[in-house]
């Protein structure tokens, strides 16, 4: 099972990787923004994408819209992790193709549950 984490904060990437490791997942690629995320995906598909929303260069929303438009990877499950908690934001993210949503700050248990839920899809 291969994961891609896209977040401009190296701290947030590490926190998510720690959770993935605890769940037994070691195969994790990282990217600092949506553009880098697309570069990573061009090297090969992943099983799950976990992405931030607010990032320089290319936001998480634009990144997901692009992923959903690419035939080979368009069905990759996506979990979004962001401080954006307004209803309109969540609706926009779901419309862009996000499958599940975690609002920061989160407890380790919440992150675990959301990852497991995305995997169970």
């Amino acid at each position: 099972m291969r994961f891609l984490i896209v977040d401009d904060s190296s701290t947030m990437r590490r926190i998510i990787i720690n959770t993935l490791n605890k769940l037994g997942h070691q195969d994790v690629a990282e990217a600092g923004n949506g553009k880098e995320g697309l570069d990573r995906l061009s090297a090969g598909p992943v099983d799950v994408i976990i992405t931030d929303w607010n990032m320089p260069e290319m936001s998480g929303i634009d990144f997901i819209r692009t992923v959903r438009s690419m035939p080979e990877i368009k069905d990759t499950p996506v979990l979004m992790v962001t401080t954006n908690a307004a209803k309109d934001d969540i609706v926009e993210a779901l419309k862009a193709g996000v499958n599940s949503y975690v609002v920061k700050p989160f407890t380790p248990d919440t992150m675990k549950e959301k990852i497991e839920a995305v995997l169970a899809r």
Partner: protein
Amino acid sequence: MPPTAAIDSLFIDELTAATRDVFKTMVFQDLEAASPTSEDALKPGANVVGTVAFAGKTVGLVVFYSTLDAAQAITASMLGVEPASVNGELHDAIGELTNMIAGSFRTRMAHAKGETWAISVPTVTVGSDFYTKYVSDVQRVLCPFRMNKAELYVELIVTRSATQ
């Protein structure tokens, strides 16, 4: 309303709750909150400063202050490593911490007041003791917290409020 009028206590309560929530969930620390002050108080040993700006009906800044030692402990706790092994990660960790405090504060204010704010990316400064003096026509409140032995501060600076 004169520009130096006190900040609505709702703002202070929500900012305090947001800060405690971020520390509990992401740093695994229960913060003790002390009485907020509007005095031009010194922030002893505050040589790590994280700032996030917000803008909407109300415009201002959320500023996080801590000592280098406390910032190292916070970073280590977030990353799940020993404080002694924290090196280059501090800037990003304090930036993300400040981002989450400001983001959670924004969500709470949206619920409490129906205000929609945009927030900036965080900036972090690490240096020797310094003290920032703001122009007088802003409203500000300093919220002190205690994390174990360390004193932390979150300051709210309002440069334009919805009621003005």
